[in-house]
Every structure is written in structure tokens, then in C-alpha cells.
């Protein structure tokens, strides 16, 4: 199997080079130049709104909910109010992350620091960053931030610090490079899951969360 695959690799590369009119790999000088090819900025949609305002507007347009809080206690109050408003109970799975530990969650909650389980109603995770252009939150998979918490709970709640909101997705790449970070999974999530596979009719809550709520701490 392994030897066979080396042969396949060699043959595919050979066929590509033949098609490109070369009989070997790129000239080392060109290869170095390509490797150094700066990550070029490309044309992208311009906008003038403030970052938090744009983020909230775009996320709401994608059927997500957004609220703002002034401090940690405010975050807890906003989330608690959201759960009450939508009658979502008070059983919550929290990402085992220090950023969430600092928040004074309501005493009447049954909050557990753990990964998601299939029947979970509510999961809360911290964000890696947020993108104002599209109203997306960026979430990385790690020991403290399990990927399944973004996907399994019926309601997904994300906590964002206002200074985490960046103008464009490209700014998230800069954050990753600055931290020399390449997570196993990096999600950009924009609103609740949806499908239009039945007669082109939009229906929220396909396989992922049915509700998506972001609290931004100013």
C-alpha cells in the first residue's frame, strides 16, 4: 500500500509537470520565490460601519442573536435572560476554559464544565476572534474548547470580547500567524445551522444548533 502510494504520487506529479512543459520540479530559485510569495491582500468588500455594529448587523441578518454587556456579571445576566426568554431551562454545558470560569454564572443553573453530549440543550463557548465583515465568530478546537460544543447543543452561545472583533477574516490569519498557531479545527460560524433542501424553503436547525446567540463584552 505504502509503496503503491509513493508510485501514485510520483506518477501524478510527473503527469502534472509534463502537462506544464517541465520535466522536473520547479527551479529552486522559483520555488523559493513562491514560498516567500507574501500573503497578498486581495480586493474585498469595503464597509464603513464600526466593527461591533457591523458584526451585530451581519449576524442578525444570518438569523443569529446578539446582545452587549458591560462587565462579566452583565454577560451572565444577558445569557440568563436569553435562556428564560426562550424557555431553555437552566442546564448548561460550559467549555472548560478560564475565560468562562471568570464569569459569575447564576447560582440556580446546573452548569457543567465539559464537552457536549448528544442531548445537550445549551452549550457556551468562548471565541478565538470575531469577524465584523460577515458577522462570524471564529472558534478553535483545543483542550479547553471542544469542537463538539459548537455543534451538538440545540442552543449555542458564544462569549466575545469587543476587542476580539476584527474587520476581516484576513485579520484572523494574522492573529494565528502571530501566535504561531494552527489549530486542528478552526470554525467560522455565522448563525444557526440551516437548510434549504426542501423546496428551497429556508429552515433553521438542520443538524447543528437551532439557536445561535452571541454576547459581546464592551
Amino acid at each position, binding site marked *: 500500500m505504502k509503496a503503491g502510494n509513493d508510485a501514485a504520487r510520483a506518477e501524478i506529479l510527473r*503527469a502534472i509537470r509534463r502537462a506544464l512543459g517541465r520535466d522536473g*520540479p520547479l527551479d529552486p530559485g522559483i520555488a523559493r520565490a513562491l514560498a516567500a510569495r507574501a500573503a497578498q491582500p486581495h480586493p474585498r468588500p469595503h464597509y464603513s460601519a464600526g466593527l461591533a455594529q457591523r458584526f451585530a448587523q451581519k449576524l442578525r441578518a444570518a438569523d443569529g442573536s446578539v446582545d452587549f454587556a458591560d462587565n462579566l456579571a452583565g454577560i451572565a445576566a444577558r445569557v440568563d435572560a436569553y435562556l428564560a426568554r426562550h424557555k431553555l431551562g437552566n442546564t448548561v454545558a460550559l467549555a472548560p476554559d478560564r475565560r468562562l470560569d471568570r464569569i459569575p454564572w447564576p447560582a440556580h443553573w446546573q452548569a457543567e464544565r465539559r464537552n457536549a453530549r448528544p442531548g445537550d440543550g445549551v452549550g457556551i463557548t468562548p471565541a478565538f476572534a470575531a469577524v465584523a465583515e460577515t458577522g462570524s465568530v471564529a472558534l478553535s478546537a483545543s483542550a479547553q474548547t471542544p469542537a463538539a460544543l459548537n455543534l451538538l447543543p440545540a442552543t449555542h452561545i458564544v462569549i466575545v470580547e469587543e476587542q476580539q472583533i476584527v474587520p476581516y477574516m484576513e485579520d484572523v490569519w494574522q492573529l494565528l500567524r502571530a501566535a504561531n498557531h494552527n489549530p486542528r479545527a478552526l470554525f467560522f460560524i455565522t448563525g444557526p445551522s440551516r437548510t434549504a433542501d426542501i423546496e428551497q424553503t429556508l429552515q433553521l436547525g*438542520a443538524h447543528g444548533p437551532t439557536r445561535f446567540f452571541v454576547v459581546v463584552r464592551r
Partner: protein
Amino acid sequence: MRAAAQNNFPRRVQVALGNETLQRALGRARAGFQDKRRRAVGQVAEFERMRRAAKEIKNHTLTHLDFYLEKFADAVRANGGQVHWARTAGEARDIVVGICGAGGKKIAKGKTMVAEEIELNPALEKAGHEVTETDLGEYIVQLAGEAPSHIIAPAVHKTRGEVLELFARHHGAKKRGGDTAAIVAEARQVLREKFTGADIGITGANFLIAETGASVLVTNEGNGDLCSCLPPVHIVTAAIEKVLPTLEDLALFLRLLGRSATGQEISNYTTLYAGAKREGDADGPREFHLVLLDNGRSAMLGGEFRDMLRCIRCGACLNHCPVYGSIGGHAYDAVYSGPMGAVLTPLSAGLRVARDLPNACTLNGRCREVCPVDIPLPDLLRKHRMREFEQKLGGARGRLALVLWAFFALRPRLYQAAAGALLYLLKKTAGRRGALRKFPLAGGWTQSRDLPVPEGKTFLRRWARGER
């Protein structure tokens, strides 16, 4: 084998045109897709510049494809993933079946056109595995025993009533409402168990990033992410032209993909997957496999169809094609339908068996206008037609018509005289109705419509008389 059936294209078109349910579904889909794209594109002043940049990036990447593929493969390995190179569809199937191992595994699949291309599901089932498609549209066509009829909306040809019947038959007689919400809720419930119980997840990739080794998955349902994150083994099937050099390139392509496909600024779930679970990670697959498929693409790279390798499978050309909009995807009887399919299928199945597809085109040019990477689809289809003529694959009648037409076209005076005579004859025959019910040698065309007869004199006559 699908290719063998290609010869029946005219018959399948007739069936599709006469299928009222299909016609209703197609009409609704066409209007929806076109409106959504128009609105989304209209909101971005930079769209044309983004489109030109995307075309340049793809051309640059294709010109250095070996370099970027090796770079990508090295990065995947550095991330703890395994890369498998597959020259052909059969080789790719064998690799995936080999990874899955002994039969009896539960496999949850996200939507992947490459898996359709290599006919993966029958091979996995033959090896004794249970395969479940988890994209709602794919799940519906799997239950129906059909193939997807659209690359991004696999069940676009199905009505809600048909889906209800399918669910009743396959999910047992549960009490259910008939609305879309109830259907989606039922599928969610059934497929939840498939995600959580799966031994293996298989997905495609919309893009591969050479810089970081990431496979990028774009969905709205979140099903692909569940397939990627919950099972202990994740297999990605992707073709070699999916590679992009950098994350900056990815950002540009995501902006174009969402707007072109569904009129969204970004799809709900856009995820970059870089290898297997890391030490300490709370979850993730313990094995990550990436199958890189050639299957004729390296050959396309060296030929006159290289532009087609820029395709990002957004479906915009299908959504704006009057032929696709009239006959739907199944009439093409191939993995890829619409304009991009009519270019690709003759390359994979051979022009001899797929010769009708490039002719099922009005050369109206809409597909190229909406293509986010400016693929000259009408030109590529015309190339197929030229090859078809050179290889004498067309019918004798069409060939004779072309030879006759060329004879007149090269003799302008004769052409004008003949055109004038023909016009006179047509008008005489049509009488006051101004249309013909039948026309010699065009019985197929006049079967479902009348041929309107041109009004007035020939164009050149009117021009000469000063009508401008």
C-alpha cells in the same frame, strides 16, 4: 455503467420536459437561486475585481500545481494527517475501502462530489459497511436510490410531498406533520444517531490550503462538521485542483463561493481542518486521512480544457443555464450536470458517449458571466463540438446540414438569394397564422412547439433599404 447510457440523452430530455412535478421544482429553484445571487453580488462594488483576482490565483496555482500539492501534502503530514494519492477513481475507492478496514463499520458522510465521481458508496456497501449521507438533500436522494441532480442542492428535483412519502416509507409509520419544519426535525432526529454512532466520517473539501495543510469545508447544515469531529476516523476526499496557496487566497474564494452559490456573504459553517486530534485536545478524530484524486485532471492541465480546472463547484452556471433549468440534472446522467458538467463529462466518459451534452447549449453566455472564476464555458463547449465534427461523431444529417450551410456561407450572393427564397417559401406555407406546426427534418423540435416564421424581408434587404 453510467457512461453507456449517455446515448439516450434525447430520450431523457423528452421525459424531463414532460415531467410536470420536475418542471415546477426546477422553475422554483431557478428563480430562487438567480434572485439570491443577483442581490448578493449587487451589494459588493468590488465583485468584478474579486472575480479577476480569483481567476489569476487559480491560473497561478495551476501553473505551479506540483509545487503547491507537495507543499500541501507536507503540511498535512506535519499536522499529523496521512495523504493518499490516487491516480484513478478505482485507486481512490480502493484506498478509502482499505482505510475503512473490515466490514460492518458505520460511516457518516458529508456531501462530497469527488465521492460521487469515484462511485464510493457502492464500493463501501459492497465491503460490508453501512453508509449514511447526512446532508439533507443527499440523504433524500440516497433514500430514493437516486443520484444528486445539482451539485449544491442534490434533491432540488424533489417536492415536499415526495420527501414526505420517502420518510414515511423509510422511517416507519410515525405521526408527523407535513410542513418543512417537521421534515427537517425528523431528519435531524434520525441523523443525530448516525453522527454519534459513526465509526468513520467521510467528507469532501471545498479548498485545500498549501500554506497550512488545512482542508476547508463549507456547509450550511453543519453536517460535514459533525462527520469531521465526532467519529474516531475522518477521511477527506478531494481532487488535486482544489489547492490554494495561502489563507488570504481562501478568504477571497469564500467571498465568491457563498455569493455565487446561494447568495450568502459566507456559508454558516466554514471550517479549516488540520489533521488529527492533537495531544490534549478535548475531541477530534484520532486518524485523519486525505485522499488526493487526479482522475484525468493532470491530463486536462496540459490540454485545451485547462480553464475548467479553475471550477470551484459553486453551481452558478447550472442555476443560470436555460437548458439545465428546463431538463434538470438527471437528464445529463452524469456526476456533474449543467454547463460545467457538459464540459467535464465528455472528458471523463469520452466524447463518443457524451457527444450530445456539448450540443445541449444555446451559447447564450450566461454561464460564463456568472462564473466566479471566469471559465469560458461556451468556448469550451464549442471546442467539444469542433472535436465532434472532426471525429465525425455527429449524425449524418447534422453533418450534411453543416456542409451545406458552409457551402452557402462562403458564397454571400448565393446565400442571400437562397435565404430570400426560403423566407418566401416559409411564409407561403405558414399562411396567416405565421407559424408552422411541422417542419421537415425537425419533427423533434416541432413536437412540443410551433415554429414561428420570420417576419418581413431578410436582414440584408432591410439594411440595404435603410431600415436601421
